[in-house]
């Protein structure tokens, strides 16, 4: 074996070793990224649940009534509102 061939072989082996190291570090980086994305997905999932609940709260009859009163909206209620006297009695009973 000539010196030139020996050097070439060493270079190839060195390059292979670097590739292996690079691949392994990429793998670790990808795994970390996947883990981050999983965490992010969990966070989004949590936020989506919270938002759905918030929307549900805003759609309740009580909330809609409150909004109509607060902003004095000219909206036809699905059923006639209770008279003032009846509402007062109801509030007292509640």
């Amino acid at each position, binding site marked *: 074996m000539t010196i030139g061939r020996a050097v070439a072989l060493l270079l190839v082996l060195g390059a292979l070793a670097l590739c292996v190291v690079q691949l392994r570090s990429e793998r*670790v980086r990808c*795994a*970390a990224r*996947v*883990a*981050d994305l*999983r*965490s992010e997905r*969990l966070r989004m*999932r*949590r936020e989506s*649940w*919270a938002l*759905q*609940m918030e*929307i*549900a*709260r805003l*759609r*309740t*009859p*009580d909330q809609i009534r409150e909004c109509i009163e607060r902003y004095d909206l000219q909206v036809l209620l*699905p*059923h*006639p509102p*209770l008279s003032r006297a*009846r509402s007062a*009695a*109801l509030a*007292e*009973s*509640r």
Partner: protein
Amino acid sequence: MSAISAAELVIARGARRQTRVAVITLAGVLATLTALGARLIYINQVLAPRFVGLAQSQQDAHTVIPARRGQIFDARGRVIAGSEMLPTVFVDPSQIEHPDEVAAALAPVLGMDAGELEDRIRQRSDRSYCPLKREVPAAEAQVVRELRLRGVGVGDASCRRYPMGRLMSQTIGFVGRDGDGLEGLELAYDAFLRGRDGQRVTIRDAQRRILADQDGATAEPVDGGHLVLTLDAVIQDLVEQELAHAVSSVDAEFGMSVVMAPRTGEILALATWPTYHPTELEASPPQYRRNRTVTDAFEPGSVFKPFVMSGALTRRVVSPAELIDCHNGSFFFGRRLIHDTKPSGALTPEGIIARSSNIGMGIIGTRMGNPALHDIITRFGFGVPTGVGFPGESPGLALPLKEWNVYSTTSVPMGHETMVTPLQLATAMCALCNDGVLLRPRLVKALLNADGTVKQSFDEPRVLRQVVPTEIAHWIVQKAMVAVVAESAHTDSLLGEYRIAGKTGTAQVPYPHRRGYQPEAYLSSFMGTAPADHPQVVALVMIYKPNPRKGYYGRVVSLPAVRDILVGSLGYLQVSLDPAALEAVARASE
């Protein structure tokens, strides 16, 4: 020669010594290597599982990914029950060396007493998980994370939320701290709603930062299915308001109401008042949690009369035009004297229902006989659970025929000796409004998969049987029950936008554990439907033990509430106005 020999001898000796040293050294090295090899094998074979376990316990972190408990929707897709993921601050007491320091650091953040926290950590020192505070606000949770205290963690936990608050709470029920359904539909459909928690295993560095997920060890959560109910939040809201008003205006113990669609058997509202908030259980007594419309049975009183009358007409023991002598308000059936609240002479069957004559119904019961009476009440579904699928449903009480006696013949037609649940009563009323066909009441419209696709639909009405002929059912509703409302209208001006049909009832409340009735204790009821000519909604209101000084007749206490529920519901459901009722209103206003 000898000198050479001596030199050779010295060399030879040196060589032997070197050989010996080399052999000893080699033996030493071999022995060391053997020992090291043996140790290596020992570590790899014997100690390996322990070390691997130790390493994993340091590097791996197991996190539960909570499955989402399925949502419960009303008939129009409004969320009645849903789940949120909220932080829970917990400790691993086995990892905490100085509980006093940890408690002192956490107390101001969590707004808790340091001494109490320390006690809790010390008391659970044998456990690896001890929740300190659930449903922690996100900002507080972040501060706890930033404290980086050893043995203290912040995890997510699924929390049940009821955005409608008290609305429908007795029907929906609630879940416990661990997410198990404990009452109502949350209990009945627990297995379907709950889902299965997932797990995430991560590899962490010394700072507990996530490096990667453990391959193959992560299990995705399986979310629970969703429930779509037939209940409508708007109608339920209306019913609860009317019920609350009816109960409070006469200082009653409680009130119940059922609203149903007679053509489909769908339950639109199911209410008991007073009620409770499902997330504030400690704030209300346990009896407020009972869905009495399904779990409690009562002696119905006069609201029962139309069912018996329909049976009498079916068996032709009486004809619609026949006049029956009601003996001016008091009459002896054998040795038993029966009175009418409104004394009458001769009445037609329509008049008997309209004036709620006990004597007239007693005569009709005598003509029918016990077997026919028993047959008609069981055909209407009294005495057996409706099969609505609600936990703890009461079957009511319809005594076996062999236990009936001579008094039963006159008692049962008046609504005594029989116990019915409000749901059974409303279901039977629906049969009269549905051309005499009894349907199974339905509370659940559909089961949905977690992704929203339909798993099972219950949209088709479930026909149980034809209880009475169509023409007799029509006559009862459109003649007799309309006459009841017209009779009551003299005092209460009941005509509204729709022509309403119904039946009043004012039953005495029996003692729970002995014979006889409690003094001044009544169950005031009204069951009604509208529009009378083509019923779209059936509503029942029962008020238990109103203050007699404030009113106790069904037509005074319950009828106005039913009227408002019917008018409100029909308007909301956009049922066209009844021309006959509008004419009546116009005539009345002229």
